């Protein structure tokens, strides 16, 4: 039970975190009646995951060998792009976002922010969605064939716990003052996106599109990235116990560039 719990919690955590953040963003924009955009993105992400899960079981040959990985890499970089764009937007519109509710909603609507939040929800769910769907489907069919219930129960509990964490992020976010919320969100998105970016680079290394390399350092004796805590650290800040030089460089470069985008403009547009 514990083993399947860890798998689904680890796979679902990042999606739940992103959903919690984008729902909270809408709340802080004062645009609660636009939740449907994020819900739609999340549901479409789930549908895409199921379709992908079905496609994978139907495909074979080179399409199966490479297809899902290319889609996976594309989703990662799309997510990085969307998160970066959103963080940059928040810094550009910091003044308006600290204004009254009407101004916040108007700003978000005028710049099509709501559909971007929906797209973030979509990529967040779709990223590990197909893996989770196939894993859960395997548990369901094993249980149907007479295996004991606890592996399935563990998997379901993992998904539920991830969802509860996402809800906690949302709830915590909406309790912050508007000003703190956008600062905290910018920092969290910066770290999540940096982690995703380096994960994407690692994936390209694994696929042979970037030169392979040995681990540059090894901190697995301190914190394994296979366990629960390490799994959270991976979803939150992109922790890797044995990163390659390309992953480390990519992470650092992303942090530098995105920090400038997210926080560089604050002085000009922020409050005195």
């Amino acid at each position, binding site marked *: 039970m514990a*083993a399947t719990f860890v*798998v689904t919690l680890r796979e679902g955590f990042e999606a739940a975190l992103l959903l919690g953040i984008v729902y909270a963003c809408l709340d802080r924009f004062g645009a609660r009646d636009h939740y449907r955009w994020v819900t739609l993105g999340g549901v479409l992400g789930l549908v895409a995951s199921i379709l992908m899960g079905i496609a*994978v*079981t139907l495909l*074979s040959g*080179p399409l*199966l*060998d490479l297809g*899902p*990985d290319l889609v996976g890499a594309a989703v990662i970089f799309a997510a990085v792009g969307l998160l970066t764009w959103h963080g940059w937007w928040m810094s550009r519109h910091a003044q308006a976002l600290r204004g009254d509710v009407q101004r916040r909603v108007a700003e978000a609507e005028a710049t099509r922010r709501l559909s971007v939040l929906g797209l973030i929800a979509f990529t967040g769910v779709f990223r590990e969605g*197909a*893996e989770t769907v*196939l*894993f859960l*489907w*395997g*548990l369901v*069919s*094993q249980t149907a*064939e007479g295996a004991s219930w606890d592996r399935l129960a563990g998997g379901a509990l993992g998904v539920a716990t991830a969802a509860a964490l996402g809800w906690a992020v949302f709830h915590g976010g909406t309790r912050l003052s508007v000003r703190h919320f956008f600062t905290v969100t910018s920092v969290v998105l910066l770290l999540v996106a940096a982690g995703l970016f380096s994960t994407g680079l*690692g*994936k390209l*290394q*694994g696929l*042979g599109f970037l030169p*392979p390399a*040995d*681990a540059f350092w090894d901190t697995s004796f301190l914190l394994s*990235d*296979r366990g629960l805590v390490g799994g959270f650290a991976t979803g939150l800040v992109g922790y*890797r*116990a*044995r990163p*390659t030089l390309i992953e480390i460089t990519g992470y650092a470069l992303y942090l530098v560039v995105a920090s400038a985008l997210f926080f560089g403009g604050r002085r000009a547009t922020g409050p005195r």
Partner: protein
Amino acid sequence: MHRFVLLLATTLAAVVAPSAATAADPAEIALTIEENRFQPEEVRVKAGAPFVLVVTNRDKTAEEFESRELRIEKVIPPGKTVRLRVPALKAGTYPFVGEYHEKTAKGRIVAE
């Protein structure tokens, strides 16, 4: 125009079917998943030479071949075979697991 089409076709062929185009085909190593275990659990390869892991899942449920060291994460649906291209490795041991059954599905690649 014809030359352009030809160029496009060769480029496409080079991108789409790199396995068919390579001169010296890398060695293929078969790996089977059965009852949530890898068979064999230890794969010996030559260091410095790329190879292809041909992984067949004989179980009725999906498995995810995962190696953090090799940066490979690959779902293998029940009854399917996937080919994983692995670049030349330095001498050493590279563990892998079946993420969906981590307790039993464990193995390692030993490059020497």
